[in-house]
């Protein structure tokens, strides 16, 4: 098999464009080198430290043999000095010439350095890079050749694990800085995760999915409203990432198969609640989720999300636009729709997702499934637990943005 493969150079890959590509790469290197030069040359010790720090990071780990002085080229004056001098004397052309010359030197030296590194492949960063590049290629091949399977609900584990969750992880780690508590409470088989719902767009569902995958190694199977499942793109991606219609048949069979099923009983009432109502749980529907859990005897895991309810502070709504677009509500926030696309950026609140102790349901008798009192009682119990945890975590919180 490998005989038929040969390792081609850039000429084979880019064909007639190889010179263009080469020139592009050269220019990029030139820029980097100029920057390095500007930072390292001269006597500015602070900037030298910066470079040393950069070179100490894992990306450059293993290049211990490179003498920093080799990066300083020919004792040119520090660039900012040169710039200041030239501007003072009004010789902008000279600055340009200076810069070009500088960059020419740097380009050669950085180019040689990168070329050596690439050829010998001696340091860790390249191996990491190799891992991610080959993974990306393998992923692309699998996706485009249809080499993946979906389960009966349309759940595409391959897509979810390798495309969908990585897409949201930066938001999870860096934007909302999600802190997960109580991940050890997640049972290893079928369970119903019940959570508060807010934030105009269901960002809490996405973040809970990432949290459960990263902290408990489970995929969250979301129960979604039929409106969402009918929407183009939304319904399609929904099924792909493990969502299904919130109906008894699907919820029961998922729980019986041992899935971790997520439900937001507040529904659209919760998602579209005004900013003034944040962290005040709405009515939990008719408690349908309790009936489902009772029927299967699956435990209910209460989940309280703090931070999600402030990402889009809804201060008003436009029923006319909502009716026009066929949406349950059309939100107005201080930034949306006034700032357009910018208004769609969620506020970087600090999130805490806490999973409570599972509430067992197998202690109830089968008759309780049809007993509205028992169902409401259990639904209220779950609601109370989530509300209490929300209030406790809100009390501990010092700042919306820093936790």
């Amino acid at each position: 098999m490998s005989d038929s493969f040969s390792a081609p150079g850039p000429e084979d890959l880019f064909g007639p464009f190889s010179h263009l590509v080469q020139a592009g790469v050269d220019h990029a290197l030139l820029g980097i080198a100029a920057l390095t030069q500007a930072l390292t040359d001269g006597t500015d010790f602070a900037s030298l430290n910066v470079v040393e720090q950069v070179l100490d990071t894992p990306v450059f780990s293993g290049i211990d043999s490179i003498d920093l002085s080799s990066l300083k080229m020919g004792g040119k004056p520090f660039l900012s000095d040169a710039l200041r001098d030239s501007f003072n004397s009004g010789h902008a052309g000279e600055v340009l010439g200076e810069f070009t010359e500088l960059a020419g030197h740097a380009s050669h030296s950085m180019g040689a350095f990168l070329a050596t590194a690439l050829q010998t492949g001696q340091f860790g960063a390249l191996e990491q890079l190799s891992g991610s590049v080959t993974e990306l290629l393998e992923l692309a091949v699998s996706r485009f050749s249809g080499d993946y399977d979906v389960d009966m609900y349309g759940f595409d584990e391959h897509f979810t694990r390798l495309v969908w969750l990585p897409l949201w992880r930066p938001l999870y780690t860096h934007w909302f800085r999600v802190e997960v508590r109580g991940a050890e409470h997640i049972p290893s088989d079928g369970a119903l995760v019940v959570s508060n719902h807010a934030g105009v767009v269901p960002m809490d569902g996405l973040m809970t999915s990432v949290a459960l995958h990263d902290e408990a190694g489970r995929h969250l199977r979301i129960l979604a409203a039929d409106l969402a499942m009918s929407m183009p793109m939304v319904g399609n991606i929904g099924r792909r990432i493990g969502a299904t219609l919130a109906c008894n048949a699907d919820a029961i069979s998922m729980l019986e198969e041992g899935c971790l099923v997520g439900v937001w009983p507040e529904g659209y009432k919760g998602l579209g609640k005004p900013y003034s109502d944040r962290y005040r749980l709405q009515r939990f529907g008719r408690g349908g989720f309790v009936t489902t859990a009772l029927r299967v005897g699956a435990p209910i895991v209460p989940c309280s999300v703090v931070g999600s309810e402030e990402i889009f502070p809804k201060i008003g709504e436009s029923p006319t636009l909502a009716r026009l677009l066929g949406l349950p509500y059309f939100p107005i926030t201080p930034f949306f729709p006034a700032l357009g696309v910018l208004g769609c950026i969620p506020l970087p609140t600090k999130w805490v997702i806490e999973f409570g102790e599972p509430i067992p349901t197998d202690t109830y008798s089968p008759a309780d499934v049809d007993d509205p009192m028992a169902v409401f009682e259990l639904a209220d119990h779950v609601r109370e637990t989530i509300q209490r945890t929300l209030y406790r975590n809100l009390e501990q919180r010092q700042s919306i943005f820093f936790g």
Partner: protein
Amino acid sequence: MDTSGPATRIAVVGGATYMGANLAAQLTANPDVEKVLLIDSVMPAANIQRRFQGAEFIAVEYQSPALVVALQRHRIDTVVYVGMHQNMRDAVARKAQKENNILGSMHVIGACLRVSTLRHIIMQSSASIYGASGADPALFTEDMQARTRPKGGTALDFVTVEGYMRGVRRKRPEVSITILRMASMLGSTGSHTLSDVLSPSIAPMVAGYDPRVQLLHPDDAVSALAHACTHEAAPTLRVFNIAGEGIMTLGCAIARTGRIPLWIPAPLYPLVFARFRTTHHTITTAMVSYLKYGRGLDLRRMREEFGFIPRYSTDEALAAFVESAELEPLYTREAMEKSAYKLAASLHPTWAEDLADKYSEVAKMRSRETLAQANDAYADTMTIHDGPHT
């Protein structure tokens, strides 16, 4: 009269179809079956006739009394009704099609009621009666209904005729009725819009949607009908979903067939589909919703109560279709692997080796999975066959 026991004298109504002819071939090969009679209102095409394998064919109009006479003279105990058209033709042909599907079925059922020896009616129905919408559960069980009743087209025909079958139960309670709701079939029957989507090199999809599709190999459809004939049935009305195991998305099917997907906004879809189709079928709104949301059938009852396991899974049915229709894939996984390898090699020589390692792992994993599945399937068939004897 003995109501249990497998059928011995079988009439296949709608015998001039692919399904009827192949069923006849399979039944005549069964030594327990005394008589196979093929009935249709039209003469079979030559390629269909070749498949009869010596079964007797008679052409009668369904509304003529000759149908009852024929059934009675041959002391038929089982009628298999496969004569309904599955796919929408253009508006003019649709009138004739509806005539056949509704009035033809009424006449056939009326004739069956007059045959005293009759014990069992088997009807080939279609899963299209479940419709397709965003409010559908992931899997339809036989007891569920479409979220919105089909407004027209062949799906409505099937709903109507299934209703007539329930009527038969009231008039002749000793007659068993088996209704098989079959999933989408690709290939030789030419019976499904999906074939029209997958056949051209550019496959039109509805923009923003990627439906789940469940496929049934035509051979399995025939086997399911034969299974219904040759296994005893209690005098009740039984409904079974029939489909291959597993499910796939249309996008995945298109990729595996090596087609290039083209996303078309839903309102324009029928127009564009007309440009791409390879057959005379037009596309209805019901079909467009199917191409938006797809459909899944719950097969537990098929496996456990009906005791039928299709030979082809959904994946295999697609592969068989690609092979039999001689569809030339425009791209394959192997070709893509090769270009990815070239790209990796151009970036760095050792990366290509890493990639090749990964491929071989994938290949190994895939073959392991296939082997495990094959073993499981084998074990399943063994337990089913051994079950009653032990």
